């Protein structure tokens, strides 16, 4: 395997932030001294991901590079380094189940298995209806409240198979008609 982005999105036009988001982006850039605008990269990538379909396509990254006046390669390097950024288009909802020791001690393996069975996918895959992408994550800082998963900005803690079922149902309802 070699990482060369060849998906169909690569030649799409660059997206653009709304005027309102742009204000937020400018505020973030303003948190750093003159000439250190690159420091805003991480936060802006989070915003870009939220705004532009839950992932960072090549045009999105090129756009961010242009905004910050840096080389596109600097953005690709960062986006591939940090695990939170999706460089491939995921489902509408990304479930990230913590699999690290403390969560494993209280049953994260079973939760992962349960979701795998329920959605008929393996970790790393997206469900057939395109709604759920299941991922595993390393320690999310909720060790005392495990098993847990992260979905967007939310932590769902003290999971049980029953709670997972409920969560999946709610999320499916929320997203299936969009």
């Amino acid at each position, binding site marked *: *395997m*070699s*990482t*060369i*982005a*060849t998906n169909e999105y*690569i030649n799409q036009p660059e997206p653009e932030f709304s005027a309102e988001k742009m204000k937020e982006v400018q505020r973030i850039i303003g948190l750093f001294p003159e000439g250190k605008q690159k420091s805003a990269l991480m936060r802006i990538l989070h915003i870009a991901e939220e705004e532009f379909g839950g992932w960072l396509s*090549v045009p999105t990254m090129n756009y961010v590079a242009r905004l910050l006046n840096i*080389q*596109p*390669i*600097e953005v*690709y*390097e960062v986006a*591939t*380094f940090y695990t939170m950024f999706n460089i491939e288009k995921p489902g509408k909802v990304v479930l990230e189940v913590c699999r690290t020791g403390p969560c494993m001690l209280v049953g994260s393996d079973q939760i992962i298995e349960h979701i795998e069975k329920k959605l008929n996918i393996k970790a790393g895959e997206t469900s057939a209806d395109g709604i759920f992408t299941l991922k595993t994550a390393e320690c999310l800082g909720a060790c005392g409240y495990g098993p847990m998963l992260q979905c967007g900005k939310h932590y769902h803690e003290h999971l049980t198979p029953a709670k997972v079922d409920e969560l999946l149902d709610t999320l499916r309802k929320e997203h299936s008609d969009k």
Partner: protein
Amino acid sequence: MVKVIIDDIEVEVEPGTTILNAARKIGGDIVPPAMCYYSKLQGSGGKCRTCLVEVAAGSATDPRPMPKLVASCSTPVNDGMVVKNKTSQRVYDNRAAVTEFLLINHPLDCPVCDQAGECHLQDLGFEHGKERTRYEEKRRTFDPIDIGDKIKLHMNRCILCYRCVYTANQLTDQRVHGVMHRGDHAEISTYIEKAIDNDFSGNVIDVCPVGALTDKTFRFKSRVWFLKPMEASCECTKCAGKAVIWMFGDEIYRVTGRKDKYGEIEDIDGKTAWICNECRFDKKDKSMWKIEGPRVINRHSVISQNQYIADDQIESKKLTGK
């Protein structure tokens, strides 16, 4: 000036000099191997850990030994420092371990690799490698990719020394390749299909210590030791035009910069003589060059030296006057 003792040999160097450069000032076999450090590239070094040495005494004022081995390429000397390189069993053992780490995921494709014979990893393996691998796992693999029509990337062979990244940063105005991902999945890539295309981008081939970045215009798959390296120069508007042309008969098979015994491009008239892409890739006709004489390949490499001597014995002897 500060005084340092390396493997029982004393040397005086400027304050701030690294242990490795102090050792290079002494020269010979007490110089630690360096796979990632490249003196002409700012910021390089510290990554491969092959240059680890033991500091038996930190300085004259604080003669305590340093508890850990240190990377000689990025540790500055202190006055009165005592360093052990080849006189330390610990260094030897840990260097062997680093060599093993570098080799576990390295393909065993030396027989088909263009770099064979001038590969620093091959040398390192020869000097510090174990006879048999203890690695029973699957090696990580990547597909070779073309970075434009001039450069080929065999990521399998890369040791992530970052030299090519520094080169692109420091020699070209736009870097288009870099390191993607992280950990043992880290890889050199352009991420999007893109040629590294810039007047000086070809230098990434010269700095690569292994066969990960190779010259696609290298006309013929030939072992380098069958070629005759000649120092040659040309009138060039972009670079100093001082290169080594690698010949087979009357034909130029490839062009490289002039490398010193550490594999680094030499300084000529006080400037590092990086060559431009035109000289490297396009001037493959003997008439384009003024041949100055045979090039002595003065690497520490056991493998390559034997080979070149077989080829060039008489002429190189003449040249060095020995």
